[in-house]
């Protein structure tokens, strides 16, 4: 339902964004756009959402389970009232202009009616046609009618027409016969629709490099050579082998597995010059998990450079080598030779001493490169969005998510190979950019929540209805559902008990509402699947029947019973009865709960006036919100002022000057220079901060905080820096190249040393930008003085992604690269009036002497010391290296754990200028979820304090990690613990800490839980 909130005439921008592609980037973009007041059409060409991330087992560097992380995001996506998921839909064309596009879509026919399908799986069970399953990377078959995995969204089956017997030969139709709900519609037709939309975000994602193109590795010919994604499915407990690692040839466990990196990346021969960014870490992760699985599987990774350039990656990599004893061999493989007797594989590689070694492996995993999704490439051509040299959607300089076509943005894999945190950040960034254009139309197309009357049940005795679900055969195949319903009927206060095929189906929900009305039920217990899937639906059903949604209780007799006790039906039935009994005991004591709300202060505080801070402030203003920008020094611009050029030809120094001008002229932004934030109190949406400058201190109210306090270059103490004029840092070298090219022209021998102050035991992180900086500055020197001899001493060259091409260029222009290892670092000594650098080259295994006119040190990026002070003032966490710590390194890189706080830029970790800018907008996008609302509803399942029982002892305050409960003076003058509803997450720790029982968690009161156990 739409509702226009403005009365202006026409020529208004459409308040919606269309996101094309539902991988993690598209999902993040969709969620952010929808949370900030716009409608989203999420278009996905496959039958269900999720992209590549849904296929992963674990993710680096935390080794969290991929589907566990995606699950909540996808659940939010599926139930969001303002997101329309258009799965199994192609994009045909785009017309119009930014703010008023028309996008033409083809909704492909699944041959299944989404309204009727309840995903019972009977059709797939009976379907006779097997097909190699692309979701499981062809390791196992699926049926012609399918769903990729049981939790897929949308939860609708699809007929693969290319393989379906009926569609090919006109016979079969078994699925139609067995479907109880008449959901199969063979003559369903494709539907062409045109949507009005304000902006487009391309998030079409990636495809894997076809490993068959590297014939020498034998993929597709030799059974035990598999791709990284196939191995990923193998590792997954939900995959074809239930997490059991086995060779495809004979099902035996492999004793030795080898990974070959860079298959299809960094390969000019194949035309894929670029680096795929993630495979080094992915292989490390896979090897680590393999070792955790079983120490009798040896793992070896054959690589060129170990690219661990993200936050936490170097530690992850070091850990894999030390704790898990993954073996790393710095040698790429020319070919894999099969041993036909036992299908093992022989690999030859060269050692540092130049000898060749043969090794036999039971399995070889190819870390294949990432290529652009062909349908995205096709779409780009159709709608006129240019691609870059590598075939991905081309970004604008310093604006990663903008394409050359106004109103069309890009994020995630479609922009270039990248890992999950970068995809998520870009998704948020694209959301901010796309909606900035549409700011005036915020709220025009969002659904207005209906208010439903509620019956007051406080005077009634509990009257419980129990609905036991068959879930097709998922439950009923093991549990005697009728017996459970009979048992439930005998429990006291149970007025009505029944069993049904699918409690979640639309008609069953209607019957439930009817039963509520007929029997005047005031509590409902459903015994079915996990609350994660359908609890919101059931609660909504109760609401629509006039009952408070919290009078609902769900007994999980599927995941907790039928699915795990399949071999013991009698015991499972008994357990189901016990679970239902517990739920009924609790249901008797459930009380209605109501959500509160409070008003949001719709303005932002941005701390730090560098590239990230300025971009964030401007982005807020573009969205129509006021921002206060606080900068500690007298000048805005930060590090960017002296960053003259990037490796792809942009000039952050010029860009930031323009940006400063825009910010200073922007009426919605208040700039405070030489100022600091001295305190912040309040909660998300309602903060009050003190800003102190030389004129004194004043307080401001704001709804959100963005931390953008930046970083700085490490001033080395090693390699004679500070003691010899010819030893400089990269930044100083850049200044020299810009300001005094004549001097630069005279340089004959320049030696650069990488990783100065990074990747050391006390600073075990990579500063991300230095390899690219070295390459960039080498190329710059070469343009000034083509005869200069440049040597770069490195440990790994980490020019990831498209930056790899700059590395290639540098080598082509004669820049020399010498590799050294941590335990044998180069030495810099005085030599007449110049310097001598000697390095033990690890490949040549000899010492190389490099007389040098100039030694350039690639010094680390450190967090600012002021970050620590700010962290204490705002009570925000820092990681072990002193950078600010985000809520979750993979899925929430721009949020702090404390609601209402966001971060971006170097304060979060080393990054490039365009990444800082993109992150800043991403942080704004995240903040908009708060700022775009006038009110925030507070969760109702939070802690309550009984005023009489509370002794104000403060134990709750000590225990709470969300600062949600504090002892304060209340109206009567007494001290009492008070809950800040906005901060309370309903975890219940305060209940444990409270000695008198004053703190009790609504919906999870002690009595409610105790009765479940005691009854």
């Amino acid at each position, binding site marked *: 339902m739409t509702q226009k909130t403005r009365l202006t005439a026409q020529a208004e921008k459409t308040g919606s964004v269309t996101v094309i592609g539902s991988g993690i980037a598209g999902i993040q973009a969709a969620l952010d756009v929808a949370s900030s007041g716009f409608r989203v059409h999420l278009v996905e060409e496959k039958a269900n959402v999720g992209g590549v991330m849904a296929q992963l087992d674990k993710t680096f560097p935390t080794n969290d389970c991929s589907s566990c992380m995606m699950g909540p995001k996808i659940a939010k996506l599926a139930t969001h009232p303002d997101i329309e998921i258009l799965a199994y839909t192609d994009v045909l064309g785009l017309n119009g202009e930014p703010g008023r596009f028309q996008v033409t879509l083809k909704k492909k026919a699944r041959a299944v009616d989404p309204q009727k399908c309840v995903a019972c799986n009977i059709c797939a069970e009976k379907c006779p046609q097997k097909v190699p399953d692309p979701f499981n990377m062809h390791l196992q078959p699926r049926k012609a009618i399918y769903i990729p995995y049981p939790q897929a969204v949308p939860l609708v089956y699809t007929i693969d027409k290319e393989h379906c017997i009926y569609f090919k030969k006109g016979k079969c139709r078994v699925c139609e016969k067995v479907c109880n709900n008449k959901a199969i519609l063979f003559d369903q037709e494709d539907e062409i629709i045109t949507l009005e939309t304000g902006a487009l975000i391309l998030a079409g994602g990636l495809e894997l490099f076809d490993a068959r193109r590297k014939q020498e590795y034998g993929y597709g010919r030799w059974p035990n050579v598999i791709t990284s994604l196939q191995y990923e499915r193998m590792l997954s407990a939900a995959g074809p082998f239930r997490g059991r690692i086995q060779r495809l040839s004979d099902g035996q466990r492999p004793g030795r597995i080898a990974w070959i990196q860079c298959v299809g990346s960094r390969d000019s021969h194949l035309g894929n010059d670029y680096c795929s960014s993630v495979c080094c870490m992915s292989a490390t992760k896979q090897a680590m998990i393999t070792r955790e699985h079983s120490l009798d599987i040896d793992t070896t990774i054959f690589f060129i450079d170990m690219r661990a350039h993200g936050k936490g990656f170097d530690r992850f990599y070091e850990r894999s080598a030390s704790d898990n004893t993954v073996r790393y061999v710095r040698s790429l493989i020319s070919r894999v030779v099969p041993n036909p007797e036992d299908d093992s594989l022989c690999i030859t590689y060269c050692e540092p001493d130049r000898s060749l070694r043969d090794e036999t492996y039971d399995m070889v995993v190819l870390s294949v490169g990432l290529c652009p999704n062909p349908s995205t490439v096709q779409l780009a051509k159709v709608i006129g969005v240019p691609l870059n040299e590598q075939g991905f959607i081309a970004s604008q300089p310093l604006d990663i998510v903008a394409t050359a076509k106004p109103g069309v943005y890009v994020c995630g894999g479609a922009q270039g190979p990248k890992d999950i945190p970068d995809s998520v950040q870009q998704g948020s960034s694209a959301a901010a950019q796309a909606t900035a254009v549409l700011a005036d139309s915020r709220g025009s197309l969002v659904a207005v929540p209906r208010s439903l009357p509620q019956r007051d049940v406080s005077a009634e005795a509990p009257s419980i209805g129990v609905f036991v679900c068959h879930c097709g055969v998922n439950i009923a195949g093991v549990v005697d559902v009728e017996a459970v319903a009979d048992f439930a009927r005998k429990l006291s206060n149970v007025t009505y008990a029944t069993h049904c095929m699918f409690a979640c189906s639309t008609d069953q929900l209607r019957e439930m509402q009817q039963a509520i009305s007929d029997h005047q039920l005031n509590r409902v217990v459903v015994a079915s699947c996990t609350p994660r899937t359908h609890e919101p639906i059931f609660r909504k059903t109760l609401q629509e029947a006039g009952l408070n949604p919290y009078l609902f209780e769900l007994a999980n007799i599927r995941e907790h019973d039928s699915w795990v006790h399949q071999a013991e039906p009698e015991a499972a039935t008994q357990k189901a009865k016990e679970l239902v009994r517990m739920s009924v005991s609790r249901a008797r004591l459930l009380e209605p709960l109501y959500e509160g709300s409070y008003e949001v202060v719709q303005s932002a505080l941005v701390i730090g006036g560098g590239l990230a801070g300025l971009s964030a402030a401007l982005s807020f203003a573009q969205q129509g919100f006021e921002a206060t920008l606080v900068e500690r020094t007298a000048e805005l611009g930060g590090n960017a002022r002296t960053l003259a050029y990037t490796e792809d030809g942009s000039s952050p120094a010029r860009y930031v000057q323009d940006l400063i001008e825009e910010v200073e002229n922007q009426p919605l932004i208040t700039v405070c220079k030489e100022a600091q934030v001295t305190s912040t109190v309040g909660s998300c949406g309602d903060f009050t901060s003190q800003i102190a400058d030389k004129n004194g201190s004043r307080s401001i109210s704001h709804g959100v905080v963005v931390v953008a306090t930046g970083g700085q270059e490490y001033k080395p103490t090693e390699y004679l820096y500070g003691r010899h004029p010819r030893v400089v840092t990269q930044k100083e070298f850049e200044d020299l190249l810009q300001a005094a090219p004549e001097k630069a022209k005279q340089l004959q021998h320049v030696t650069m040393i990488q990783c100065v102050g990074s990747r050391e035991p006390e600073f075990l992180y990579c500063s991300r930008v230095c390899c690219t900086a070295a390459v960039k500055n080498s190329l710059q020197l070469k343009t000034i003085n083509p005869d200069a001899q440049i040597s770069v001493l490195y440990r790994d060259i980490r020019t990831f992604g498209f930056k790899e091409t700059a590395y290639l260029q540098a080598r082509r222009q004669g820049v020399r690269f010498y590799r050294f290892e941590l335990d044998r670092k180069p030495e810099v000594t005085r030599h007449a009036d110049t310097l001598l650098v000697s390095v033990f080259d690890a490949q040549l295994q000899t010492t190389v002497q490099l007389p040098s006119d100039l030694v350039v040190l690639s010094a680390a990026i450190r967090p600012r010391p002021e970050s620590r002070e700010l962290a204490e003032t705002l009570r925000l966490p820092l990681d072990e290296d002193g950078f600010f710590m985000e809520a979750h390194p993979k899925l929430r890189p721009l949020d702090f754990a404390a609601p209402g706080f966001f971060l971006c830029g170097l304060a979060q970790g080393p990054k490039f200028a365009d990444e800082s800018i993109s992150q800043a907008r991403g942080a704004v996008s995240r903040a908009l979820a708060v700022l775009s609302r006038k009110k925030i509803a507070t969760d109702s399942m939070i802690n309550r304090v009984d005023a009489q*029982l509370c002794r104000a002892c403060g134990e709750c305050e000590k225990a709470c990690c969300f600062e949600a409960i504090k002892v304060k003076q209340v109206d009567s003058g007494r001290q009492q613990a008070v809950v800040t509803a906005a901060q309370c997450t309903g975890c219940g720790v305060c209940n444990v800490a409270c000695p*008198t029982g*004053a703190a009790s968690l609504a919906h999870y009161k002690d009595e409610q839980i105790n009765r479940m156990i005691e009854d």
Partner: protein
Amino acid sequence: MDPLKHLTQKQIDYCMECGLCTGSCPVSRELSNFSPRQMIKQVLLDLESDLMNGREIWACLSCAACSERCPVEIDFPEFISARRQQARDAGNVPQESHHGVLQTIAGLQTREVNQQRTYWAREAGVFADTGDVFYFVGCLPFFDVTFRYLNLSPLDTARSVLTLLNKMGVEPVISDHERCCGHDALWCGDHSTFRRLAELNLEVIRSSGAKTVVFSCPEGYVTFKKYYPQHVGELPFEVLHMTEFLSRELPNAGVSFQSSSNRTVTYHDPCRLGRLAGVYDPPRQLLESLPDTVLVEMERNRQYALCCGTSAWMECSSCSKAIQVERIEEAGQTGAQTLITACPKCQIHLSCARSAMDSDIEIIDLYAYLAMRLTTE
């Protein structure tokens, strides 16, 4: 004999509605709808449903301040205790503090537990399995774990007692098999648990051969002395409070005490030792026998002492806190450096409240204080 009937006829009928009880009651001052006078009247007129179903029945501290003043000597604590048994049977239970852990422990002790609770004694002194004198330690080992978070060590009381006894040449029996005396169960209307605990404790003492049982805890003392005989018959041994034992034996035992900078003290009479058991002088004699020590009485002392605010590990609340704060302020007004308590619960409750207050006064247990003042050799 049905205690309820007995009470109803004798105790309640005598009430003349004078209001002295409610006027003396510390709880009534904080909770406006708590009134001992009204509760008596309700029962008199058979209007009991409010009493049986409400929270007020649990709010009483059984401190006996009301009974102390009542002109017709109505034993209000007895009245409440009997009513609570009825209420519990009807399903009305109190809000147990500390998640009910102390009640759970006492409940488990009614079963065949094989306790290991004398480890502290092995390190603190000498004791035996059989002998004439039985030191009934009570719940101190459990309090020591549960109230660690308040920076208290309740077992210091027991250690101090053992040290003092040893110094007097006494090697008491200390048993692993002691149960909770049952005080809390009795006062919370759980008479079946109480009876079982009493039976088990009698068995433990009998098999030790002890003729005298000494208590450092006032609740244990008064429960054995007054209430065990009511429920399980005459006791075959002498029941003494440690202050009685010490003030009787200490002067002749050749134990000497030394001066201390910590010399000005005030003393808090526990309800169970004072009003309920009538022991006021022995603790004072002990304190005054210390060299160079000044005892300054609080305004409300002896039978007028203010209760420490919480009873039987239930219904701890803002009301309890307010009473505790008042008592500590009263102690502060004496000018004493130290407040001496003679009951582990008084010490715990007052210390808990003091930690949230701006008060300098130290709260020390009587026995720990005595042990502290022993001459060092």
